[in-house]
Each structure stands twice: as C-alpha cells, then as structure tokens.
C-alpha cells in the first residue's frame, strides 16, 4: 500500500497500515485538528482507548514515544516523530449534536467530524457502525486541563509544516477526519488541508 495524499477539511480517510509501516500526518497550514481513531485490523473491537492510553502513560498529552493503546491494552501504534510537541486525546470529536449543545441551534447543519467518521466507515463496510466510534485523538489540537480542574480550548501549538509520525505496532485500521469545526480556535477558525504520507518499514 502507498499513501500520499492531501485531505481537505471536512474530508476523511480510512485505510489499513501494516505492522511496521510508518504514516506521517502533516499540518500543512498550521492549527489544524486531525481527529483520528485506530483499530486492530483483525479485531475491530480491540480499538484505540484514550483513557487507557492516558492512564498507562500518566500523561494527558501525546507526543514522541507515546504508545497508543487499545481497550485490551495492546499497543496499536507508537508516535515515533513529532515536530509539534503536544496532541490532545481528551476533547473527542465534534458532532452536529454537540455543536448544538456548545454553539446553539444555528450550527445544527454544519459539517462535523462524526459525520465524516460515519461516512468513512460506511464506505469501508466490514461491519463497522456508530458503536465502533470511540473517544479519539486530536492531532495538533491543544486542550489543556488545569490542576484546579479547568479545561480550555487554546490556540493550537502547531504551525505550517509540523508533522507527527505513527508506526503501526500491529496491522491497524486508521480512520481520520480532517476537522471542519469553525466555531473554536482548534482550527484557527479556518480549517485547512493536511497531508498523509506513508513509509515502508
């Protein structure tokens, strides 16, 4: 398999990444959230778990060396390079329903990451449904939690050309939504394209 493509905001990508292969996600224009889910390619129920990943590494944020764990505690992938320095896995994906809660009824029909996820898994088939959508990673997104219990959405720490590189530690299925959210600073109020590039082992 070879991947070398640009994903516009509001679009997505789904595909298998074999064990040992690397995949680079590049924030071409800066401040762009890339909502990402991972699955064991041979057992989709053994999927990425944000809470297990956070707990087992004792850290809220993902960066170089972070192991992306599954619900069964398996390492699905490792972040092997990161020129951005911090990625979120607490904030989840935007959805039309949560947009209404957060920003009011006028945002009801704006495009959202969950719609992209649902479209991509429908295209992929293989039994994937909404039940398979769980709490995701937001590459290049900055959602600090404070010792006092606060949470904020901050301007991204990313910049044009920053990238993160994953190495698949087993055969994985990767699901990506390039976030179209326009109501908060996670995309700088202006969603922009990303690129996906793979490297053979």
């Amino acid at each position, binding site marked *: 398999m070879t991947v070398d493509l640009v994903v516009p905001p509001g679009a997505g990508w789904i595909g298998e990444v074999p064990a040992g292969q690397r995949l680079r996600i590049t924030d071409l224009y800066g401040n762009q959230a890339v909502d990402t889910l991972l699955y064991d390619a041979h057992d*989709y*129920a*053994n*999927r990425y*778990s*944000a*809470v*297990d990943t*956070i*707990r087992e590494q*004792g*850290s*809220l*944020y993902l960066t170089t060396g972070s192991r992306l764990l599954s*619900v*069964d*505690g398996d390492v699905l992938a490792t972040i092997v390079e990161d020129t951005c320095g*911090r990625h979120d896995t*607490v*904030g*989840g*994906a935007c*959805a039309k*329903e*949560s947009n*209404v*809660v*957060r920003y*009011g009824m006028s945002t009801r029909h704006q495009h959202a990451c969950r719609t992209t996820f649902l479209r991509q898994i429908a295209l992929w088939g293989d039994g994937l449904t*909404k*039940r*398979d959508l*769980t*709490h995701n990673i937001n590459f290049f997104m900055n*959602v*600090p*939690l*404070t*010792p006092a*219990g*606060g*949470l*904020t*959405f901050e301007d991204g720490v990313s910049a044009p050309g920053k990238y993160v590189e994953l190495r698949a530690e087993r055969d994985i299925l990767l699901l990506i939504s390039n976030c179209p959210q326009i109501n908060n600073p996670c995309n700088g109020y202006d969603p922009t394209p990303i690129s996906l590039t793979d490297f053979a082992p």
Partner: protein
Amino acid sequence: MALPETVQDVPGAASWSLVVPRGRAIRLEALGDNACVSTLLYAAADPLERLNIPDTLKAQMSACIRPPLVLMSDLGRALCSVTGSSLDWHDAITGHSLDRHVTGRFGPSDYATNGRTLGLDRRDLHATVNWFVKVAPDGAGSLAWQEHSTAGDWVTVRAEQDVLVVLATAPHPLDPTPDWAPAGVRVTVGPAEAPGPDDPSRTFRAESARALEAVAR
C-alpha cells in the same frame, strides 16, 4: 404516588446495573476509604446513545465531574445531572480497571462479566466516571492519583431520561494500595424533583441548559 426509596449495598470488587427512570435520583455513598465506583451510562430506550465524557467535559469546561455538571450523551442530550456531592472532583479521564490490572496484582476474578448479561460488549465501552477518585494533572499534563475520599463521601445524580447505569467497584488501576480491600458503595434510588428554571445544573452554563432542553418534554 412516588415510588419508594430503594437501597442496595454493592460490595467492593462487584458489579451491578440498574435502570434509573427519569424523575428518580441515585445516591452513591462510599462504604470505605478510597472507593472507586466506575460507571457507564446508556439511554435505557436505546443503549446506542451513551455517555460521552469528552463532550461532557468540553461543553462545560471541566477536567473532572462535579456538581452541577450535566452528564451528556453522544447525541447532545442530558442523561443525568450531578446535583450534589461531598467531593469536588470525580475522575473521568483514566478509565476503569481491566481484568489484567486486578488479576495481575490480586489473583483471578470474574467481576467483569456484567456487561455481557445486558447484551453489551467491548464495543459499548466508553470512558467511565470514576466516582470518588481524583487523578489530577500538573501544569505539564503529568497525572497523579491522590488520596481523595473516605467512607461516607457521597454523590447524588438525577436521571434526566430513563438511564441504564452499569457500575463496578473494582479498585482504581492507579490506586497504589498493596492490600486487597476494595470499598463497597451504598446505592439509594429515590424520587427527584424535575429541574426547574432555577436548577443549578440548568443555570450553570448555556451548554448545560441546552443539553437539558434536548430532553425536556
């Protein structure tokens, strides 16, 4: 006439599930120190609608669960409101104990079987609320489990629709205690007033009010 109150003591290292109808409230009281009651929530009418911790936290700008937050489903609707607690922090970002956490330290158990009874499986797991647990970040995002709760600590949660509650009392995976003495919890279900216009959960934030409005009828 309101249904009477029901009381159930769930021992440590056990699991239980119950449907709490709209208009009822559930009170959890820790029966020992450093209790951990890991809880999953689903809409009883259709468990495909379930608690979404990221949406709950980001809509209400909180790193933890505490009064008067509304616990929101992935469809932007209120499942429950946290109406009171003796504690100002309940963890929701570090997940529940897996079998291997417990069996690795304390020997085999079969506690993690409750979901199957209900027809739920791994694909239905989501981030739990871990009542009575505090795992807080420092300024750099490093997390530390803290001594936080003692016997008698409590939390009350009002059902805003008919809610399937699945709870487990396995020790939190970051609890460093070497002794096997998981705390139990007293579960009391009783009548609750519907949230009026001045309800603290409704007036907390516009986002909280909109999630409650989505289940108003």
